[in-house]
């Protein structure tokens, strides 16, 4: 209900303003001028803006003083982002407000105001601000992405998915949106759709562990074991602490690819990491038993093959 307020309001205002100006030319040109500037901003912005998850942001720090007020809006944006990372929401609010007033043709003031509102769980305000940002830059996916997150928080799943989908379409750098949509597609069995989104996610971030895992699962579901192995290995590379990925890799190698040596190595690595408490969760499998069983199997295979050939020992150190 509140989400549509600014849109509803804007229409009659625009009509009234154009109808009531003393100097029609001045009023028209002023409006058209503003629109022209906005289009320019939007076009430029949509083509080139990127995004980064707050946790992954590096370099800039949130300023302690107010000197930022002398900067241009494009210089303030990274500072505001740094303040978001630092959770200095008061400063984020100030910077957002400054940009909203002094660079009102750009969408970033309302955006940071939305993040600030979200931080204090003022979701109606956050949504309103994001919609305002979208009015200024209708083709920017970041705002849909943030709207999706808020609807997610409000358990308005359908709305959240809708905005995530728009976000994914509009901004290829929104890895999180691609991943969520990919995973949802996989869940409902739409593997092609899932792969499309996951590829987008991995194009944006080749080391995005959740996407790699979902992609691996997708391949496992499709019994494409080689590719599943590849994605699992990439997932492990992206997140070495992933117990599930390591276990799945070992299982795929053992059960489907019959790569016992690789499987044994994977199990041994898993066991060693578990022992070192370097995994993100516990492993619901008796690894000692599994390793012994696998060793036996390897021995039998080895002995069966001694007649014709000799193989080097599969015993070796565990590689993380």
């Amino acid at each position, binding site marked *: 209900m509140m989400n549509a307020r600014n849109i509803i309001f804007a229409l009659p*205002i625009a009509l009234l303003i154009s109808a009531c100006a003393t100097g029609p030319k001045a009023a028209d040109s002023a409006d058209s001028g503003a629109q022209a500037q906005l289009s320019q901003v939007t076009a*430029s912005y949509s083509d080139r803006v990127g995004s980064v998850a707050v946790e992954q942001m590096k370099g800039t720090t949130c300023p302690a003083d107010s000197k930022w007020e002398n900067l241009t809006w494009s210089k303030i944006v990274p500072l505001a982002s740094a303040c978001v990372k630092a959770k200095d929401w008061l400063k984020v609010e100030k910077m*957002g407000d400054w940009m909203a007033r002094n660079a009102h043709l750009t969408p970033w003031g309302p955006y940071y105001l939305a993040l600030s509102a979200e931080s204090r769980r003022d979701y109606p305000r956050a949504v309103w601000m994001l919609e305002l940002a979208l009015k200024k830059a209708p083709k920017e996916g970041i705002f849909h992405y943030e709207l999706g997150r808020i609807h997610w928080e409000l358990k308005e799943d359908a709305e959240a998915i809708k905005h995530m989908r728009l976000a994914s379409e509009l901004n290829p750098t929104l890895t999180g949106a691609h991943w969520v949509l990919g995973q949802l597609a996989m869940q409902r069995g739409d593997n092609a759709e899932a792969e499309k989104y996951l590829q987008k996610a991995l194009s944006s971030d080749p080391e995005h562990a959740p996407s790699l895992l979902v992609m691996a699962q997708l391949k496992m579901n499709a019994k494409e074991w080689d590719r599943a192995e590849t994605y699992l290995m990439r997932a492990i590379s992206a997140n070495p602490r992933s117990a599930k990925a390591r276990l799945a890799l070992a299982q795929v190698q053992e059960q489907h690819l019959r790569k016992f040596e690789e499987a044994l190595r994977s199990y041994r690595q898993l066991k060693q990491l578990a022992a070192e408490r370097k995994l993100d969760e516990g492993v619901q499998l008796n690894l000692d038993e599994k390793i012994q069983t696998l060793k036996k199997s390897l021995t039998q295979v080895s002995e069966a093959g001694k007649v014709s050939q000799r193989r080097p020992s599969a015993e070796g150190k565990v590689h993380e």
Partner: protein
Amino acid sequence: MSAWKRFEFYTLIALLAVAAPTVSAKGKAAAKKPLDELRLVEGDEKGNEEKSLKAELLVSASENKAIQQALKLIKKYKGTPLEPDLHFRLAELYMRRSKTDRFFEVHRESETIVKLAPRVARASSVKNSVQKAVDTYGVIQTRFPSFGQMDLVVYNRAFAYQILGQEKDAENLYWQLISKHPNSPLVPDAHLAIGEIAFNRAQFALALDHFNAIKKYPNSRVYPYGLYKAAWTYYNMRDAQKGLKKLEEVVAYGKYISDNKLEARLDLRKEALNDMTLFYEDVYPAKDAYSYFKQQAGELEVGPILLKMGSLYERHSRFNEQRVVLDRFIQELPTSPLLPKVHTDLVLAFDHLRQKDQSVNRLNEFAKLCNSSSSWSKGVGKTPEENKKSAEECLTSLNETSLKLAKKWLKSWKKLPSDTSYADASEKAFEIYLRTPGQGEEYAQSRFAYAELLFARQKFRKASQEYAAVGHVSAPGALNHDASYGALISLEKAVGEKWSNEDEKSFHQLAQDYIAKNPKGQYRLDIEYKMALLAYEKERYDEAAPTFLRLGRDFAKQEKGLKSQDLYLDILNIKKDYRGIRNYTKELMKGGTDVARTQKMRKLYEQAYFLEVQGLEEKGQLKEALAEYIGFFKQNPSSDLAEKAMWNAMQLHFKVGDAWNGAKAAEEFATRYPQSPQSVNALLRAAQTFEQMAQLGEAARVLEKLAARDEKNATRWKELAADFHAMNGAAPSARRLYNDLKTAANAEKRKTLLNKLDALEQAYGTDQSRAEIQRVLIDQNVQPQANLAKVRSIEALLDAGKDTEAFNQARHYLGSSGMSPNEKARLRMVHAKILEQEFLKQSVKSRAERVATVLAIKTEKLQKVQEALQSAIKFGDPKVSLDAFERLYGCYAHYVKALKEMPVPAGLSKEDAQAFRAELDKLVIPLEEKSVDTLAQAVTFAHKQQFLDGTAARLENELAKLNQQSTVNVAPELRKPAMVVPVLSGVGI
């Protein structure tokens, strides 16, 4: 003067001429010692008066001495023969002194006399002296009858009486002389005296007798005078012909004495010829005058006589006769030096005859005469110098005449403007007069009069030239001023509306002349104004502007000065020099005392100021224009344009990209001009801008103002303000506005507002405020909020452990209509959850004989849960359904686990125990399958529903576990993705 009076005058002259020698011959001898110091000096009036006085005093003194001496001698020689002679001498001295007394009597009022000889002046008396002479002559007549010069004594005594006005006594004595002394040479004189006395008494017959009596004495000195007087007596007796004959006799007598060189006799020919003209007029026609007088004059000049004749005709208004005589004069005497006078008289004669055309013609003839090349001019004198002089005098005479007539006719035309013949004649006369170059005041005045005449006759161009000529020749002064101005005005009138370059050049020259000679002239302003106006009308603004500027400053209180100011402003306006207008009007406002004009200037100032700023705007100097608009309405807050300036400033704020100040300006505009038709628009613009700038607090505040201003849409704006307040965290303001609106709203609107209040309280309210709105929603049955509130309250009861109450209320609402399927699903879930708890709590521990009963009870409870959950699923709410599926799976799993773990009842044998376990297994297997199927159903449902809470993944993992899947599911739990921030490294702005 009448003819009789004229005679009296001439008589007196004659008496003096005749008698004076008699009386003064001796007196003159006595005063024959002229003193050089007493000689009169010409021009020294006062000195001459003093000298005359001194002379008379000397004479008087010597006369008195002589009288005293005579009186002494009479005493001494009394009774001797000398005595009568001494008396006669004394009488003569008295008569002599009477003359001196007359001097003092005449000059008695003279300051010099009164000052120098007051006593003498008072004592002098003619009458006394003459009376003493009369008395002395009487003594001689009485005491010495045989005195040898008795006829002289009688005559002198008679004359003295005449002086004393005792004419009767005088007449008696004259008669006594005629009768008693018939041989005396004084007899003709006595007749003349008696005739004169009778003539004066108008006893013309008697007088004629005495004048005719003189004819007997042709050798008498008074003989021609007697004839002359006789002629006048006939004339007075209305017998002009006889009179003329007598005058002819006088002329003949004069010719006689001239011919015979009798110089001692009186030659009265000239007087007679002159007087003949008068007599002739009554006797003969004018056409014969020349011949008659030519004959009478003889060797004397006839011209003057004819001229006199003409004058007489003129005097008697016989202008035709005058014209005849003068025409003949011109014809007969072409070389006469009197011709200028003749022409003058002739011109005037025609004028008298009201023949102005002829008069003008004669003036032209006159002009020809005076021309230096005319035969008259060349031959009138004896020498070239004389000719030149005569020609000049002729010209003078001509000009006097022409000017006189020009003025006269002009005057007549002014009295009778309808008769343009006067104006025509006057014009021509002036032209003749002005042909001669002249100088001096009169000449200038005359030309000015001519110019005035032309102007009055609307001959403006010629008038302008004549005025200008006067201006050139006349010295600075009133005439020069008027003429110079007249030249300008005439030219202006001659030109009319369209000015040629040539005319304008002339105007400029005339104007410069006027200003040069009349720097403080009355019309300087008008002229300079006109010059500038001409330039202005021909769009030579650079030329006109400085003049208008100066006139506007120098004559600020005069009409033209004000017009100059206006035109200067107009030029500035034409040049679009708004800064100039602004500065000038500011200057005019400073010194202005006229309120209306000051107001007008202020208006212009404001308009120029405004236009100047608009110019900046049009040139794209937006920031400058903005600053000026702000300056304008600060400096001119009460101006009609202040509102527009403020509006434009507001627009420019937006144009230059300063939306914040644009919005502020819009709001200020609406505050300052609440009655403006733009006020609502301004507030709308401000609100829109604040909204676009995410300034919800500002937007809300402006919208509240707008609501107050725009009554028609007040509700709408107030509601939007409340929305903005709400989203700005100003819950109290939002609440206030929503509640205000709610009071006056209809049912539908009230519902909307309650929903908004609900949303407000859910987002920003307290527990208390949320409870309150829930209560209101339920009380007012606002759907779906009321039903949802009921559902939530039942769920809360359940959460609070009030199972029975929750169960009953859920059942109650499930039975009522109006609940939506989703709400019913949730209510049914309340039932399911309570039943689920009962099922889960139901223990399966039992003795052997009770096992069947316990399991039956447990199974029954399972059935009830199952029924409730399935019922909830059927309502179709996805979340409720999934929850129900999961719970159903949980119940099955629980039952399987319970059966699997069910302890063997005590007291059973090993075989029975095995059999018991085998029976339980039979129960477990289908339940396990049911459990897995239900979980699989839940997973499928979850996948289909696309829930984001991770349920699907969780259930999937659970299912994989149950199915003992060989490969682990690596898909991570679906989590809300991380917050992102923009990376603008590629943004080109």
